[in-house]
């Protein structure tokens, strides 16, 4: 009965490890294959750490909402783009305003294709001096880097940063914990980026994350990852959290998971990510897929990403059919699970436009049975970013 107990992953077996692989195993991690990496899905903590957080997806999730959770996201792709007019070059591949992105600031963006679909979502940070640091999804990084390299003009170089780790410290105590080790962190605005030494390690820190909480993502040399992770774990508010909690946190925060909620067959408009398109870009319409996206905005599009609140306790998982009150097909769940914060099932999915208003009653078909549910506004749990 437990063959489905671990997250679905099409990758047959882990082929790569992060710089914290031994560290995770020492702390009692249950490792799973994800995007070709051995990754911690949850932990069985012992000793002092168990008194802080007993471990398991729910406890790790709630620890992040209450204090500070440390995630290893070193599987994600990091790269540096540099060269003359690099911002303009990037704008040929994404719909965001990159030329207008000030130094020391980061922006969420999308790689789009000519059909208006989404090749990946990514973070783009302007480091000044014609240098941009990007973070892309682990499952997409090889394809992304190929796509970027092919789309960049001569004079702009893409350098994948294979020798760097990426940690995320997330939660209401995350900034005070980091400021204890490096006071400059407290001065970072939301989506601000700075080179900061933390516990003697040269880091690139951005005030951002994937949980809806305040916090930072920290890029650092792979060979210093254990040193920084230990320095953070020495702070009493911090407990590690695995991919399981990362997924339930981002779902509560209404954030998309590439491959589930967005992919090459979903457009930014349908995904509710129109805000990613820069104002200036909506005048020039000169990014991949602009014609399709413009037509959707000017005329119509068939479906929209929404939140779903099933009644009762049964989760509606990804690929669950959604039907309207009159029995007609309404759409499909793309991410679904159980919210530890709300103690109730939550889901995201795409529904017909006429059903996309929050409060609309629908049904989710779980194990062949239509269960009542309601279209809900996103996020399910309010963001607590610094403003």
């Amino acid at each position, binding site marked *: *009965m437990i063959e489905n*107990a671990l997250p679905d992953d099409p990758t047959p077996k882990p082929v790569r490890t992060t710089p914290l692989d031994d560290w995770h195993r020492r702390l009692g991690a249950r490792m799973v294959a994800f995007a070709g990496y051995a990754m911690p899905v949850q932990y069985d903590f012992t000793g002092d750490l168990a008194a802080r957080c007993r471990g398991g997806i729910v406890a790790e999730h709630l620890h992040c909402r209450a204090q500070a959770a440390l995630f290893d996201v070193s599987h994600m792709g990091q790269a540096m783009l540099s060269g003359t007019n690099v911002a303009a070059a990037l704008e040929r591949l994404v719909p965001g305003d990159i030329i207008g992105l000030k130094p020391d600031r980061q922006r969420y963006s999308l790689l789009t294709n000519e059909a208006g679909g989404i090749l990946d979502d990514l973070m783009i940070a302007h480091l000044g001096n014609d240098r941009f640091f990007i973070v892309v999804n682990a499952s997409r990084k090889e394809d992304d880097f190929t796509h970027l390299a092919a789309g960049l003009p001569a004079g702009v170089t893409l350098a994948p940063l294979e020798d760097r780790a990426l940690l995320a410290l997330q939660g209401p105590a995350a900034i005070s914990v980091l400021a204890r080790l490096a006071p400059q962190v407290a001065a970072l605005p939301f989506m601000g980026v700075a080179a900061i030494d933390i516990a003697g390690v040269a880091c690139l820190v951005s005030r951002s994350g994937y949980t809806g909480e305040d916090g930072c993502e920290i890029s650092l040399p792979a060979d210093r990852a254990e040193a920084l992770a230990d320095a953070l774990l020495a702070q009493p508010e911090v407990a590690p959290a695995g991919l399981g909690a990362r997924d339930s946190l981002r779902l509560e925060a209404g954030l998309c998971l590439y491959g589930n909620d967005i992919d090459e067959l979903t457009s930014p408009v349908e995904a509710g990510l129109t805000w990613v398109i820069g104002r200036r870009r909506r005048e020039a319409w000169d990014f991949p897929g602009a014609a399709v996206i413009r037509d959707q905005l000017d005329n119509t599009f068939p479906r929209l990403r929404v939140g779903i609140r099933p009644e009762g306790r049964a989760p509606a998982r990804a690929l669950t059919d959604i039907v309207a009150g009159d029995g007609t097909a309404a759409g499909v769940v793309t991410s679904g699970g159980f919210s530890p914060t709300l103690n109730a099932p939550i889901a995201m999915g795409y529904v017909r436009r006429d059903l996309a208003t929050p409060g609309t009653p629908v049904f989710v078909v779980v194990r062949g049975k239509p269960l009542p549910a309601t279209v809900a506004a996103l996020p399910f749990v309010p963001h607590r970013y610094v403003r």
Partner: protein
Amino acid sequence: MPTKRSDQRYTKEHEWVTLDGDIVTVGITDHAQDQLGDVVFVELPELGRDVIAGEACAVVESVKAASDIYAPLTGKVVETNSEITDDPSLVNSDAEGEGWFFRLEIDDTAAFEALLDADAYNEYLETLD
């Protein structure tokens, strides 16, 4: 590993079964709840339902995944544990006690004896590591 009761039987689907007269009580093993993680939802069979050994008749869902529970023996559902539908975390905290799932009235008590005993189940678990 908790001590296994000598009068308790097990399946390779990680269910435990005890016999009292012609009534068996069925739940998931401590190993199973540990592998599943935090249980958030349980669906139990209807009272009076006739089930055949190996038939999926209940569902347990953790934060990450859904799993079927199979009838370990052929019989009729005579009782279900509403405590675990109200508080699914009981399955984690006391899988082989208060976290029981359902009771079946069975015809063939010899089939119960043929299930795995504690030693055989423990040996089976070792093959999974």
